[in-house]
């Protein structure tokens, strides 16, 4: 009986170990397939024309700059909203709200995080954008601003959850020490607690921004889908097109293996690399400061 137990345990342990490495396998797989279908772009389209400002695939204009600027401006706008509101709400939940309210707010924010992006895009089309069009007297409500607003709403729950966790894990002793020295609660939050949770809050912001960059459906539905360079401040209030929306909108219509097809995969690769870089930076920030904290506390 002992023998067969050992045999079973051996197989199970091996399977578990293999599962552990599955994440690495998948990342490599994804990278490989994006590369496979995206690299032909470089042989089919000149690099200079890729960096053009005209995206008009029907006439073979594959300039991806307007798409990149579209993504940037929307992400920037979303961050402008998500960061203050996200951190503010996290501070409220963690430091100011009474216990009973915390128990209500935390699940509520989590709920927002679970709302399908297509539902938010849907409301964006039917409610937000007509409202903004009238309010700001614009020719159309489908603009980068609308996208930023909704994207901010999508990124906020991520920022709130992670930041609130970070603030919560600041040892009580820090706050008590500050109070004992005569600081008000407000001063304690800004001069002690928040700085102590700095790395976690930074991670929260990066994850929120990452979420915003990668959002597809909402932006596709409300940003107007005009691949125009978004470089002036006024561009915020006109239609733009993001990289993600481009892929989603045009993939259904391309011929398998065509240049357009390859370029879309190429854009996918760019998105993959951007999120890779953001995540590596975010994780190294957390990693480094965790080590510092361990050294200080031991």
């Amino acid at each position, binding site marked *: 009986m002992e023998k067969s137990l050992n045999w079973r345990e051996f197989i199970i*342990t091996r399977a578990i*170990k293999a*599962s*552990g490495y599955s994440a690495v396998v998948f990342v490599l797989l994804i990278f490989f397939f994006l590369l496979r279908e995206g690299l032909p772009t470089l042989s089919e389209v000149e690099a200079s024309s890729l960096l053009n400002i005209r995206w008009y695939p029907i006439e073979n204009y594959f300039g991806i700059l307007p798409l990149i600027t579209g993504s940037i401006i929307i992400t920037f706008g979303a961050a402008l909203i998500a960061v*203050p509101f996200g951190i503010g709400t996290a501070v409220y*939940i963690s430091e100011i709200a009474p216990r009973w309210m915390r128990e209500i707010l935390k699940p509520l924010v989590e709920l927002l995080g679970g709302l*399908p992006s297509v539902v938010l895009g849907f*409301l964006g089309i039917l409610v937000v954008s007509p409202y903004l069009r009238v309010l700001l007297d614009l020719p159309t409500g489908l603009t980068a601003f609308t996208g930023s607003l909704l994207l901010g709403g999508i990124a906020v729950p991520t920022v709130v959850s992670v930041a609130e966790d970070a603030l919560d894990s600041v040892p009580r002793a820090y706050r008590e020490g500050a109070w004992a020295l005569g600081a008000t609660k407000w001063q304690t939050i800004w001069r002690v607690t928040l700085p102590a949770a700095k790395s976690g809050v930074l991670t929260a912001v990066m994850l929120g921004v990452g979420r915003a960059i990668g959002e597809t459906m909402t932006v596709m539905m409300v940003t107007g889908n005009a691949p125009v360079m978004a470089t002036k401040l006024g561009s915020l209030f006109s239609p733009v097109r993001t990289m993600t929306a481009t892929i989603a909108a045009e993939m259904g219509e391309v011929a398998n293996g065509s240049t357009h097809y390859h370029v879309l995969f190429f854009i996918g690769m760019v998105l993959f690399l951007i999120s890779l870089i953001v995540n590596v930076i975010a994780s190294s920030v957390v990693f480094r400061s965790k080590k510092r904290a361990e050294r200080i506390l031991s």
Partner: protein
Amino acid sequence: MTKFFSRNRHTVQRLGFSLITLMAVMTVLPIVGTIIYILVQGGSAISWDFITGFPHDGMRAGGILPAIIGTLYLTIGTAIFSVPLGIAAAIYLSEYAKDNQWTRLIRLAIINLAGIPSVVYGLFGLGLFVLFLQFGTSILAASLTLSIMTLPVIISTAEESLRAVPQGFRTVSISLGATRWQTIRKIVLKEALPGILTGVILGLERAAGETAPILFTGAAFFLPRLPQSPFDATMALPYHLFVISTQVPEMPIQIQYGTALVLLVFVLTMNLIATVIRSRARARRQW
């Protein structure tokens, strides 16, 4: 002005608190508002026929049953692939992995998977499952794509739940003659299960609401009958909502809101179940 404020720290505090509270309210109110708004607008479209009937007249009338069933199939398909693999990977990270380079690589990979845009998953699914493995536009391809996307969520929450189980249990179990796997199976996994379940449900909830990954891998706009095999394409609620709100001319608003409501209810119910599991487990915990 500055002198006034620096003299009165408590005024500053009161102002600051008000500002922060305002921000929190402005963040939370839209959530509640959104849900209520959709409830109100879409409520009138909900009827037995709507939920159990098939669409007619180019989606402009009738019900959305195939979309509901389709989302159900996709959710189950995602669960089949991502749950066992995700939990096993979490067990590895929590109970077996040492703190070395390889483990850090795995964690980096997980963080990466979590950050990849959903539409890129769609591309990947198209490249690997639909084309290379020739599954075609199918429930299978879409489920596999969604499961890889859901994997990081399941792994991180499951690992956290496993780590939360007190280390003392493991030591005691081993000292009484248990092997590592016996300890995991009989104690650690059992105690971590509610937390793991919560994470699984939340992960699946997100998968159920996603559109981009299924766009090119399994979603179809109109199918005359329900899918018969995993190799069939399927309708799905999020995709359906997307199409009827952007691409069908003269689409009755009623039906649009109704569809949004059904999707919302689907997602919120899962959220509710997860929350209930979590709080009941916390009350029953023996540690």
